[in-house]
Structure formats: C-alpha cells, structure tokens
C-alpha cells in the first residue's frame, strides 16, 4: 500500500507516460519498416486511365497565399482536362476574390471555378465550405488542399494512383511539409514535428493496422463515401479526424502515400500556433468523445486503436505529464511529500534519448533534414516545444469543457498567414 494520494498520482503518471512512450516506440519501429518498404518499391507507377478529379480548396481571407496555391494547382502533372479546381472563397473580406478572378482571367481554358460565399451562404467554417464545393464538383474523386498548400507536381498523380490501385481505400493521404521551416525556431520545431508524425505515427499505424487519419490537406477521397455520409460534419472543428473515423466505420481504410507531398505554411508566432493547436486539441476531444462508444464495438475495426491512441495521448500522457510536473514542483517547495523511492533520473534521461532518436530517425528519412542544426533543435525541443504542447492540451481541454458547460457555439479559427 502506498502512503498517500500523491504516491498514487506519481506512480500513475509515471506509468501513463512510459506506456505511451512504449506505444510510440512500437509505432517508430513500424514506421521505419514502412519506410524501408516504400524506399524499395521499384514498380513504375503508371495509370492507364486517368479518372476525373475535383480539387477543392476552401479559403477564407487568404490573399497572401491563395495566388501561389492556385498557380501550383494549375501546374500539376495531371491531364488538365481530367481535373478541375474549385476554390471556395468563403466569406473573405480581403482581396482574395480579386486575386482569384485575375488568375481565372489568365487561364480561361482551365477548369477553374471560384465560388465566393458571404456570411449567409458561407462563413461557417471549413467543413461547410467543403460541402459547398462538393455540391459543385463533378469528379468521382475529390482531392482536398488547404489554401496555403503548394503541392509537388506529381502529388495529385500519386494520390490517384494509390486510390485507383486499392479498392478498399476510402481515402489516400499524402504528406505535408513545412514551406517556411527556416523562418524561425518555432517553424523548425513544427517541421520536425510534422516529419515525426507522418513517418512514425501515420506510417507506423498504417504498417501495423492499416490505419491512418486524414491530415486535412493533400488527400483524396471517393465521392461515394461523402455521398453516403452526407458530406463533412459542420459541427466538428477538426473535420479531417472526424471523417477518418467515419471512413473506417464504413469498412474502408485510409492509405498512406509518401510519394505525394505538398508544402504548406506553418504558424510563425506562438500565439498563432497556440490558437491553431488548441483548435486541433478541441476538435480531437470532440471526435474522441463522439466515437468513444466504438471502443467496445468489435465491428468498429481499427478505429478502436485510433480511439485508444487518442486517449493515450490526449488523456493519459498529457495528464501524466502535467501531474508529474506539478508533483515535482510541489515536492521541491516542500508542500507535499511522496514516499516513492528508487526512481532514477536515468529513467527520465532514457525517455529523453528515445525521443531524440525517434525524431532523428524521422528526420533522416527526408532529404536534407538530418543535419547538425536539426540535431540541436531536437535536443531543445523536448524542454520547449513539447512543454508548449502540454499547455495547449490543458488549454484545449478547458476550452472544450467550457464549450460544453456554457453551450458555446463552436467557432472555426482560421490560422493567420504570413508573408
């Protein structure tokens, strides 16, 4: 028997943190195996017939980035006759409409549709904008890109190739890379975080369980699925996660395609980053709670693991991290006493080493990312960026609970863009 409640809390938080670390190590292993498999694929990736694809780009006050995005969409290595670009300029108050009109004027023969909405028809978030685009689209396959994305020329082709060759795939996701990674320390952290998440978490889950979650951009989905589920859930502020669960419940899976890459702009300041990540956290809590019942449903398939994975990260790990930090501070101040002995600092240090190694492995997979500068950034990341995430998780949870208790309207926060 332990001496007091603090002992239980400390032991519990240690257990939670280490369970999640071990889980992540499993994913890192699986992710690396997936990488080896992908890197060895030799077959020529040729599509005999190209299906018609509708590219949907929801945009709200994106004058800084939308021009570049649409230009890159027009330059994709895909038969221009076999894809259309639909930009949903959702209740924008800036010059987005003018910029888009100019581009449309320069490319009169291209399948470029601009839908301008106002606060009555639009202005209700990304999900609503996508639904508007869905109504106007013609393709059997829909590719979604954020307004700040500039995909590689072959990005769309690779996504189509994968979905055409896998009938069980309800959607195929590509990678997103950080376009402004060299801007400052924050963007460097985000860049490494993105690499880790995609190559270790996404590829790892795909390798083990054929399980992925849609990242919100650079993905392709079958129209039939959207028709069946009635489009995107407008209540969800992370519509990507929400739709991922729905796809799996329908018996499809989501495939990971590392050959398709798109470059996007990430937040360059901490306040913008905090707002974005808080939205993600809130959205993920919403999805997790909405789908919690499937945790005990055998027919739900690999969705159960995803729910568990979310639980592990957003509940066990973050609570464990916050509790252990609090106990440490209170213990130092002499406010509480814990009677656990035998905890070695070496254990903490090993967790730190595992974190460094796993991020470096993810970095080594991408061209030019494994370098001395990134090494030092990873060393720093644990004490800075990861701690920020703990703060975001707490803020997101409080905000989410506040929305429920005070019945606040869920608002979709648009990430600020930078020049």
């Amino acid at each position, binding site marked *: 028997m332990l001496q007091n409640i603090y002992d239980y809390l400390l032991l519990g938080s240690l257990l939670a943190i280490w369970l999640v670390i071990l889980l992540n190590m499993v994913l*890192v292993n699986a992710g690396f195996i997936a990488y080896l498999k992908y890197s060895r694929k030799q077959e020529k990736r040729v599509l005999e017939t190209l299906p018609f694809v509708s590219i949907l780009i929801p945009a709200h006050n994106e004058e800084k980035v939308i021009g570049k995005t649409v230009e890159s969409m027009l330059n994709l290595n895909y038969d221009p006759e076999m894809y259309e670009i639909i930009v949903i300029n959702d209740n924008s108050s800036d010059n987005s409409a003018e910029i888009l009109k100019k581009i449309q004027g320069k490319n009169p023969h291209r399948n470029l549709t601009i839908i301008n909405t106002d606060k009555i028809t639009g202005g209700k978030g990304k999900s609503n904008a996508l639904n508007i685009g869905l109504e106007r689209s013609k393709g059997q396959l829909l590719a979604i890109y954020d307004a700040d994305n500039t995909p590689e020329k072959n990005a769309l082709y690779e996504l189509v190739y994968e979905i055409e060759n896998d009938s069980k795939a309800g959607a195929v996701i590509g990678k997103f890379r950080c376009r402004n990674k060299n801007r400052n*320390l924050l963007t460097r952290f985000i860049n490494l975080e993105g690499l880790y998440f995609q190559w270790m978490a996404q590829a790892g889950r795909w390798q083990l369980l054929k399980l992925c979650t849609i990242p919100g951009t650079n993905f392709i989905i079958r129209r039939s699925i959207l028709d069946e589920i009635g489009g995107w859930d407008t209540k969800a502020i992370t519509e990507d996660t929400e739709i991922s669960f729905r796809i799996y419940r329908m018996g499809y899976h989501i495939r990971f395609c590392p050959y398709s890459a798109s470059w996007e702009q990430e937040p360059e300041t901490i306040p913008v980053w905090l707002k974005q990540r808080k939205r993600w956290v809130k959205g993920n809590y919403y999805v997790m709670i909405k789908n919690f019942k499937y945790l005990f449903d055998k027919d739900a398939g690999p969705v159960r693991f995803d729910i568990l994975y979310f639980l592990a990260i957003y509940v066990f790990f973050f609570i464990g991290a916050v509790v252990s930090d609090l106990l440490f501070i209170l213990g130092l101040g002499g406010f509480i006493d814990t009677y*656990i002995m035998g905890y070695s600092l070496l254990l903490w240090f090993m967790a730190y080493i595992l974190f460094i190694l796993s991020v470096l492995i993810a970095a080594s997979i991408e061209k030019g990312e494994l370098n001395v500068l990134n090494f030092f950034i990873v060393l720093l990341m644990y004490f800075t960026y990861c701690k920020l995430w703990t703060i975001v998780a707490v803020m997101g949870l409080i905000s989410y609970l506040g929305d429920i208790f005070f019945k606040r309207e869920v608002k979709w926060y648009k990430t600020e863009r930078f020049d």
Partner: protein
Amino acid sequence: MNFWKWLKGIWNMMSKIVCKKQYRRLAWIASLIILLFTRTISSYAIAVDSKEYLFYKHLYSYGERASSVLKLYTGLQGEGRNVFLLPHDKAWEIDLREKDSIIILTPNFDSNKEYVRFMELYPEQVMTDIELYQSFANKPIDEIGPILGIDKIYPFSDLNKLMDIADGFYDRGIEFVLIIMPVYENYQLEAYDEYIEVLKYLVSRGGNLFVHYPVTHSQGVYNLDPKPPLKEAIAEYRKRGLEVMGIKLSLDKVFNNFNVFNDLDLPFLLITSEETRINENLVIDKISEILQPYIMVASYKPQQLDIFRYKANNAYNPKHLVYIDINTEMDLLEDLVALLDSQEVPIVNFNPRHYKSELKLFYNISHTDGNNNRVMTQQEIFKQEELEKIRRTNLNQEEIIRYDISSHSNKSIKVALGIGVILLIYLYISRRINTKKYFK
C-alpha cells in the same frame, strides 16, 4: 531566430569594443581596477602568510634542563602565530620577505655581535625577546588565566566523579579539556559503551577531548611503535561519535616523535615539559616547518604554576593549560580553583572555534557550531525524540514505509536502453540506404 546571426552580432559587438576609442579607454580603466584589486588581494594574502623566525644559537643554554627557546616557541605557536625555528647557522638561507620578522632570543647568544648584523640589515623586521615580551604587556584580563584540564581518564576511572566535576564547570560556564587514554581493545564490552556515553555527556557539558600520548614503556615493552595502536584507538573514538582534537605529550616527543601524531588529524598539542632532551642532531628548522600548522598549548601540573605571574604587570602569559590527574589528584582541583578565585585570576575557556583559521588545514570540528551544540548522549537523543512525539512533530516518521520502485526502474532503464540501441541501428541504416533520398 537565426543562430548564425546571433554569432555575427556578438562578433560585431566585440570588434566595436576593441576598435572604438572610447571603448578602449574604458577597457583600460577596467583592467587597471582589476589589477589594483588583485594586488590588494595578493597583499592581504601575503600579510596572512607572513612568517616569524625565532632566531637562536643553542637549543639548550648552558645548564638548562628545559629549553627556553622551545618554551618561547611553544608559547608563540599557542598564540596562533606563524613561527619557525631558525638556528643561527642557517640565518642567511632564509628568504626574508617584507612582512616577515625575526625574533632574537638575546640571552641565547654569547655576544650581541652574533645578531647585530641582522638588526642593522633589517631594522624594521627584527625584534628582540624583550621587545616581544613588552608587546604582550596589555593582554586582556580574561586571557591571562589557565585553561583547566582533567588528565588520564580511563574507562575504569571514577566516571561519576568526573561527571560531577563537569557539571560544576558547566554551571560556572567553564569550557575545559579532557585528556583521555587511548583504549586498544575490548570495544565490544558494555563497559566501553558506558564509557563512551559518559564522555559524550562530558562533551555536552563543555569538555573538549584530547588523547594522551601512548604509554608503551610499561611492563617492559620497549621500542614499540606507538602509532598503530594510537591510530586505532583514535579511530574507534571517532567512529563512536567523539571528536578527538588533540594530543597531550612532552616537548621532546613533539620533536623526536612527531611522526607518531602527524597525519592523525590532531591539530592541538598539549605540551608538557621535556622528559628527556631533544636530539640536537635533528633538523629542527625543518621539523618546525612540519609543526607549523599545529596549535601548541603549554601544559603544567598545578605544582608548576606560578600564581604571581598572573598578577605581575608586563608578565609574559602565553596560553597554557593546567592539568590534574583524575585518578590521583582530584583534591588539588578544588584547591586550585579556590586559589584562582581568591586571586581573581579568571579561568580561560578552551574553545576550538577561536582557532578557525588554523584548523582549516585539519578536519572541521563538526560537533561544535556557532550555537555551541555538542554531541548528544543517547539519553538526550531519546529524550528529544519523546518530546517530539509528545508535540506530535515526528509521529508520521515512525510510520514511513517507502515504496521502492528501484527494481522496476532498473528494468525499465534496461528496456529503454535496448530500444535505444535498436533506434540507433535504424538511424545508421537510414543514413546508409542509397535511395537517392527520394522523399522530400
């Protein structure tokens, strides 16, 4: 945040400091201040390390049984002075620095021609014994009296009487010296435990422990090396929580047998009169260098005490101890104390804290601190614990059972280490794979 920009910025700033005139001037002024400061510090250091050389011709003057040179030397060492013995034939070998001084014991020389050259060469640095004694003239009254010591305490001595004496001293606020005999065997006996407890009690009443030089010539045992048994005896005392801080021995043994007590961490030497003459073939000046860190206290029997010296003006009264054998002379103690009281001669407290700077070369005397807290006896520790229980301040401590996760922790570390090795291999493989780094 660009790391290289930061570096460049610092470099530019440093270049500005070096190149611009007003910054250069500032740098010069700052360097000057730093130099002056370090010079002051080093001067102070020199002042602290200044030496006094006791210049003599004969260790023993004609007809002397006890060396007056060594008596003065002992007295000066007891005052915490940095004194070295200097035979006259080595006078010109010393490196006399600005702050050093020479004390010439004039009666020790055959004529003043033998030392007058020094006085002419170093008029500011030479002092005669007369001048030295005059410098002691106005010693504060509370420092002229004797320190009291109880000698030859054995495990079988009258410990109850000893405790009564200690209580008496404690009531009068006297801090005294206890000279205990080294015990070489029977540490496991209960009697030894009781003896240790009594010593702890005496220490708590203001006693300071010194060990007696080993008595090895009894029972016909000659030429036995006394150091090993002495070392063991002191170690046993210290293991039991008693801090032995010095040794009582005769002056001849200080020079002839310094190897016995050297490196035993005994900073104080209670020096009694010579039992034999000091071997004059010894390299006295070198030995005095070895003895320099020690604090010497001249020690006398009550019969050797000259009570009138305390009353005379300008009398030289170096720090000294009067010791009484507990086994045979306890009646003398009362008489001595009564005599000192009647002559209004104060009894000087022996307090190691007064020798803090000298003791730095030895261990820290841990059982005494600014509040004069002494080592507690078992009875006192027990009493304190019971009082804490009554005040409910340590109740929980008795119930504390710590939950040990060290075995799980060790296993987890091993698992983590294994995983780490695997990840390192992955990193190596990833670097080596020739995939033209397709992924970007």
